[in-house]
């Protein structure tokens, strides 16, 4: 305890170090201001992305043939086909024209039934749907996805879907014949929603190509439904069914292919519905477009990291240079304990600097983005808190790594360069776009740069396609997994430093 106090006193009484730590925090925030600077000329005012019930940004754009249901009730319908139109990738965006299309469905195109809290984007929902390549799914509140029957529907072999609402619970069933039903799952809707919107929907997320840096092109899907059977207390409005394009176009998940638009027709007893867009959480990659993510607001971490590395290395090398180490070791003969005390001091300071800078940077960045009309991908509060605390831990681990390398190399210049080159350089190389995703991912798995994964707030969902590669901002490791890799590096360096400090003369 006394050792810890002694080391803390050393740290806080050297003006340069305190200035360095405080400066690291200020510089991080300043760097963010430069990074989000904009000449205010964003061409199309980005519409705010709607947030789902969980707080995360979502796509909620689809074609909906709906009617109101008050109280309990159910809907049952067979789906006989899901077809679609894809924009010709070569003509995407530029050439246009109705000619530039081919037929086909994207793997997560959807045609099914939906119980939704309201017609507002981002409201709570439960859906049973046929998909392009993933069989029948039950999805609810954007992030939940369960598998039902496999395979695609056809007229001979339709897929029967059923949703039943009882109080706040919605239960999904599927069947191949409309007689023997299997329960796929249940979802909860808010108790406050007495009148909900129920009906048929079609959505088609954009086609994504992983090669060539990743790009996306529009897709449209058409679902063929058989006779709809309703049970329960339905509003007796004239005509009953109403068609609606939820969301102006198709959100960030693409748009209608040239020459198509959303709509519905009745065919005999059934319906044909055409739609585009997606009901899903927003992820990164080519589909994201010009929007800021929370991790972009944490770019200042790099400045803080470089400054704290300088401070942490000097915290020990200054003792070598000034010969103070001899005295320190005379008063604290247990060398390992001295090193641990130093590590605790720099780690605490670095954590405080990192967490404080991140806590200021995120709201500040959001403010700046709004002022320049850029959309921001909101994330649940828990994820944001993880990114803030994670930034603190990231800097703490880097500071310990710096301190330990300072002991091992004894030369401050070499130690600082080693730490910065090991953390920042792999990040630059991996995200710089020169390396293909294979080597880039290995860099982010093995080097201390893996620790930056803790700042990742872009989620990865199996039911949403994008390019989950470093080129679109995805780390190969999970947030805590990546931080653990950095932690292992720090621990190894600290162990090496302890051994060397015992063996060598000061």
């Amino acid at each position, binding site marked *: 305890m006394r050792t810890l106090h002694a080391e803390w006193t050393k740290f806080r009484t050297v003006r340069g170090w305190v200035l360095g730590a405080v400066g690291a925090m200020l510089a991080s925030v300043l760097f963010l201001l430069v990074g*989000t*600077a904009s*000449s205010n000329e964003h061409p199309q005012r980005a519409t705010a992305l709607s947030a789902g019930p969980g707080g995360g940004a979502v796509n909620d754009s689809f074609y909906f043939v709906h009617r109101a249901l008050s109280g309990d009730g159910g809907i049952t319908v067979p789906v006989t086909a899901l077809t679609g139109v894809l924009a010709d990738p070569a003509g995407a965006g530029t050439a246009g024209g109705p000619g530039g299309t081919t037929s086909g469905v994207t793997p997560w195109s959807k045609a099914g039934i939906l119980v939704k809290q309201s017609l507002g984007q981002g409201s709570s929902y439960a859906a049973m749907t046929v998909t392009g390549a993933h069989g029948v799914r039950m999805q609810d509140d954007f992030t939940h996805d369960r598998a039902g029957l496999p395979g695609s529907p056809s007229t001979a072999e339709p897929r029967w879907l059923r949703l039943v609402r009882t109080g706040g619970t919605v239960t999904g069933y599927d069947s191949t014949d409309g007689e023997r039903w299997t329960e796929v799952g249940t979802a909860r809707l808010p108790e406050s929603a007495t009148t909900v919107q129920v009906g048929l929907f079609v959505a088609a997320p954009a086609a994504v190509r992983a090669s060539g840096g990743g790009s996306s092109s529009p897709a449209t899907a058409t679902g063929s439904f058989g006779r709809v059977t309703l049970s329960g207390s339905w509003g007796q409005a004239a005509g009953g069914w109403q068609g609606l394009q939820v969301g102006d176009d198709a959100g960030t998940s693409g748009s209608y292919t040239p020459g198509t638009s959303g709509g519905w027709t009745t065919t005999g007893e059934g319906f044909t519905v055409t739609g585009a867009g997606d009901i899903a959480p927003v992820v990164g990659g080519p589909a994201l477009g010009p929007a800021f993510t929370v991790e972009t607001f944490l770019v200042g971490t790099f400045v803080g990291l*470089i400054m704290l590395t300088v401070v942490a290395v000097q915290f020990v090398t200054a003792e070598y240079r000034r010969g103070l180490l001899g005295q320190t070791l005379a008063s604290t003969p247990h060398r390992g304990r001295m090193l641990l005390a130093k590590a605790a001091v720099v780690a605490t300071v670095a954590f405080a600097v990192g967490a404080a800078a991140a806590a200021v940077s995120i709201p500040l960045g959001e403010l700046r983005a709004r002022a320049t009309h850029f959309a921001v991908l909101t994330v649940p509060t828990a994820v944001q808190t993880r990114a803030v605390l994670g930034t603190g831990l990231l800097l703490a681990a880097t500071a310990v790594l710096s301190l330990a390398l300072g002991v091992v190399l004894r030369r401050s*210049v070499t130690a600082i360069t080693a730490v*910065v080159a090991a953390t920042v*350089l792999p990040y630059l190389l991996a995200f710089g776009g020169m*390396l293909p995703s294979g*080597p880039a991912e290995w860099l982010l798995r093995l080097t201390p740069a893996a620790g930056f994964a803790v700042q990742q707030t872009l989620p990865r969902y199996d039911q949403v396609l994008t390019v989950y590669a470093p080129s679109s901002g995805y780390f190969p490791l999970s947030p805590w997994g990546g931080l653990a890799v950095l932690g292992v590096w720090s621990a190894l360096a600290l162990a090496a430093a302890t051994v060397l400090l015992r063996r060598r003369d000061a």
Partner: protein
Amino acid sequence: MSGLHPAGFRRACRAEWTKLHTEAGHGWLMVALVLVTAGVGAAVSANVPCPVAGCGQDQVRLSLAGVSVSQVLAAITAVLLVGGEYGTGLIRTTLVAMPGRGTVLAAKATVLGGAVLAVGSVAVLASVLAGRLLLPGAGYTPAHGYARLSLADGPTLRAAAGSVLYLVLVALLALGIAAAVRDAAVAVGVVLALLYLFPLLGHVVTEPHLQRLLAQLGPMPAGLAIQATANLHHLPIGPWTGLGVLALWAAIALFLGGAILRLRDA
């Protein structure tokens, strides 16, 4: 505070050269510079595939990728050359022996520049050789539209020679900063920040205009434009103009370093 006397300058250069080549650390840094440049270049050349014709890769840039890593070694050498003297107090002896402070810095710059030029040439030649041997195996073949890497090719020669100059200029930039900042640790922090922060910011900025500006102003992205041999007119900055930007940075840093060296007590 005199100007540069030819005889005095030559003596100063000899003194700096003695310091440079007798310190063991500098020798290892120079060896590491060659190994890292060629090693990283070879690893990238062998691992970035070109599976089809028109894969859009710049094979010259790939083979010289090691420079973006090894530049830190040139920077360390430069910082130690000045910062090391402040750390040990040798700088006072140096300045007593050679009162012309401008001469001291000029001599350091000359010796350092010459050393990095020589070692950098070896490093870049080794990278080009490694690329020549490894790139065809990764798919950079005539069938895919790539001639064998050769210095007889004009743009390749420019990229290779420019990469050597890039290393020299990064060393001079670091030397100037070290003379201005004096504390070796802080100096290396400033150099690394200056090199890396521009490209890092480039990743984040969504504004295309600003993104381009960052690539034009940053010493690292602008200077490395000298390695480009493909899609030249799509680059934010031309090869020689880019290297010129880096040279400007180095000149400003040296000027600042020289001015601070003159004005302040050692």
